Each structure stands twice: as C-alpha cells, then as structure tokens.
C-alpha cells in the first residue's frame, strides 16, 4: 500500500542493507589500501613509453629513425642520432628524451615504430619532486631489458619476439640466398669470362 | 542575598533613563524603537522586583508581566512594520526627515 513516506522508508532500507551487508560480504567493499595492497594492472594497460634492448643497454633496438618523433601528436620525443668521429651516422640514438609531462600516453609511437623498439610500460609511480627537467626521461632512464618487457607483458612480448625471430630468419635466409646467388653468378661469370 | 528593594528600583530607573536618552537623541528610527524596548523592559523589571519583595504569595504580578511582554512584542512588530513602510517613501529612516504630515 502506498503511505506518504513510502519512498523515503525504502531508501532507508536500501542504505541499511548496504550498511549491514558491508560487514558480512567483504567483496562489497571497493576500497584498496593503496600503499599496502595494489591492484594487479591488466596486461594491456599502458603508462609511459620505454626503449627495449636485447643484450646490453648500449645496443638498443632503436635505430634513431625519428619516425616516432614525427608521428607523436603532442611532440614530446626528442632524438639525436649518434655519429662516430668521422661524422658517419651510426644506427644508434646518442640522446633519446621523452618529456613525460607532455606525453599523453596515446601509444601511437609504439604502433608506428618499425623496429619494435619502443613499448608502453605499466609502472605508474613516476612522480618526481622537480617540475621541468626531472620530468624529462633521458636515454639511460628509458632503456629496459627485453626480459623486463617479457615479464610485464608476456603475451605481447611473445608475439614481438616471434615476429623478430621470423624477420631475422627471413633476412638470414635472404642473405644466404643472396650469397648463394652471388656465388652462383661468380661461378657463372668465370666460364663466360674465359669463353670470351 | 540581602539586596534591599531600593537597589532594584534604582537599577530600573537607570535603565529607563538610558532607554529614554536613546529614544530621544538618536536619529535612526530603529534605534528609537530599541530605546522604547529598553524602557519597556526596565518597567517590567521594576514590577517583578516588587512582586519578589512584597507580594510573592500571589502570582498575579507574573501574569501582569507576561501580558506586558506580549504587548511589547506585538508593539515592536507593528512599529518595525511602520518603519519599513515609512522607509519605502522617504528612502531613509532618519527621524528628522519625517516631518510632512500628508500620506
């Protein structure tokens, strides 16, 4: 039946159920005591980019081709290519800065990178005290090993490794084929040479 | 508690004088009303003092005081309404300016 205070009393009943329920069913409570307990971030989650290296930090996958610097919407990546003493460009970045106060974590750099060298991290505790230069991550801070990448994003890392291995084999096979073709050509030309 | 009645009477007289002074000297109509309130209260205080010292047996003095307070409250309500009505015409509550008699 519909007495005047019906809506109000039902509202009270709902809050009472929640109040009592929170003592019996622990899953109702949504709070996570942050510093002590942490939610396991899902695999796909992304915070800021980092550079992957295979064996040693001074040989990163990145070849300083600057595609990501061009494609980055907020323009927060700055790359300087490494040159040896005679000025010949080496396929390695001398300086690779990402200003994480500008970066909006949009992950376009990861998609456009042809060498699978820049990936998204999921470590979100990057706050610093300084305002400007503290928030610019230089090359040493960005470089992280491939096993770290395999550890935070197992499925994705496995795909990437498989792809790289396949490319490496294809290149090796092509090189071998090229060597064989060169050898075959060399073998074919001497008879021609001697024949003339 | 041996305060003779005279002290209360003098206190009431002083308060009455202050109220009168306020009502007469100040220009602002609301302060005049407040002065009248002070005078009213000192009169009732006088009344209650006499009840306490002489006629404490009979509660009539208290009745009289209650009626007086009721009337004072009604009077101040009407007085303030008048002040507001007057303010609307003269744009100020300055007692001196309220000289004209026409409506």
């Amino acid at each position, binding site marked *: 039946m519909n007495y005047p205070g019906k809506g109000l009393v039902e509202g009270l009943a709902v809050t009472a159920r929640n109040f009592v329920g929170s003592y019996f069913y622990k899953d109702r409570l949504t709070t996570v005591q942050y510093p002590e307990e942490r939610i396991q971030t899902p695999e796909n989650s992304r915070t800021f980019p980092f550079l992957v290296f295979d064996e040693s930090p001074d040989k990163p996958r990145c070849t300083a081709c600057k595609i990501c610097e061009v494609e980055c919407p907020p323009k927060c990546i700055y790359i300087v290519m490494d040159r040896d003493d005679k000025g010949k460009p080496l396929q390695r970045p001398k300086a690779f800065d990402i200003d994480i106060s500008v970066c909006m974590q949009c992950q376009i750099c990861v998609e456009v990178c042809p060498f699978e060298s820049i990936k998204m991290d999921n470590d979100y505790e990057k706050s610093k005290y300084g305002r400007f230069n503290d928030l610019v991550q230089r090359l040493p801070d960005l470089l992280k090993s491939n096993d770290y990448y395999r550890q935070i994003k197992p499925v994705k890392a496995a795909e990437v490794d498989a792809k790289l291995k396949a490319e490496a084999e294809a290149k090796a096979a092509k090189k071998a084929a090229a060597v064989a073709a060169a050898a075959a050509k060399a073998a074919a030309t001497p008879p021609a040479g001697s024949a003339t | *508690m*041996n*305060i*003779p*009645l*005279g*002290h209360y*009477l*003098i*206190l009431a*007289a*002083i*308060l*009455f*004088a*202050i109220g*009168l*002074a*306020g*009502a*007469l*000297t*100040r*220009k602002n109509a*609301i*302060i005049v*009303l*407040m*002065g009248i*309130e*002070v005078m009213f*209260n000192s009169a009732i*205080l006088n009344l*209650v003092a006499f*009840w*306490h*010292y*002489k006629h*404490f047996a009979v509660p*009539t003095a*208290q*009745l009289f*005081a*209650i*009626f007086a*307070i*009721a*009337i004072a*409250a*009604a*009077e101040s*309500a*009407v007085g*303030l*309404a*008048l*002040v*507001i*009505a007057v303010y609307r015409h003269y744009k100020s509550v300055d007692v*001196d300016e309220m000289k004209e008699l026409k409506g």
Partner: protein
Amino acid sequence: MNIAFWIISAVAVLGAVLAVTLRNLVHCVLALILFFIGIAAHYFLLRADFLGTVQILIYVGAVAVLILFAIMLTHNVTGVDGPKELLGVKWWSGAAIAATLAILLKKAILSDPLATLLPAGDKAQSSVAEIGKALVAGWVVSLEAIAILLTAALIGAVVIALEEIQKS
C-alpha cells in the same frame, strides 16, 4: 550571592548603554540582546524563572531577529550608520531630560521607606502550574484579549509592510 546581583546589573547596564550609543546598527542589536539576557538573568535571580525563560524565548529568540530583519530591509547590507546620521538635530536636549529624570527618580526612591525592604529569599516561589491555573481561572478574559491583540498585531504588521506589493 549578592555579587551575582552586581555582575548581572552591570551586564544589563552595559548592554543598554551600548545598544543606544554604538554607530554600527547590528552591533546595537547585539548589545540589545546582551541587555535582554541581563534582564532574564535578573528574573532568575528574583526566583521568577518562568518569566526569565519567556523573556529569553520572546525577546532574544524573536524580537531581536525581527529587528535584525528590519535593519536588513531598510539599510544597505552593511547596516553601518554614517557619522552624520548618528545624533538627532537637538540631541543634547533629549540627554538633559533623561539625566534630570534619573536624578529625580533616584531621590524619590531613596527617600521612601520601602527601599530598605529585605528580600523574601526562597519564600518567593513561582510554580508554573500556579501561574497556569491563575491565567485560565481568574484572568481568562484578559488572556483572550491578549490573544486577539497578538493576532491583530500580526496581521497589521504584515498588511502595513506588504500593502505596496498588491498596488504596484
């Protein structure tokens, strides 16, 4: 216990004086409230506690708020009087009259033998039931008269203040 008398009367006098002399209107009302509380304390001292409570209920609770609203309606929001509006044109005559009145009253009170009457102390009890009975039994006519008067005052105040709205 007679220090209580002196303290409370000092509070009452201070309240009254400030209520009349202060420049800022709202401060006057606050002093007036102090005065009302002083008077209520006096009633308690004189064993008339029902009156004391009624005084607080009516004066401090309602009349003071009424005056505050009146000030709000008639003044700009700050409610401060400028220096020139403080004293009336012939203010000194008013003060002189009040002073002579005070002196005359004082002389009259002191000369009268009643002044030295001693207090009844706790013999003067006022029980609310007694007042109630008296109100309804002996004084019922005046009770009804007061009721009519209060309603008339209520309606009158409303009509005066708001009569303009209908016309415009």
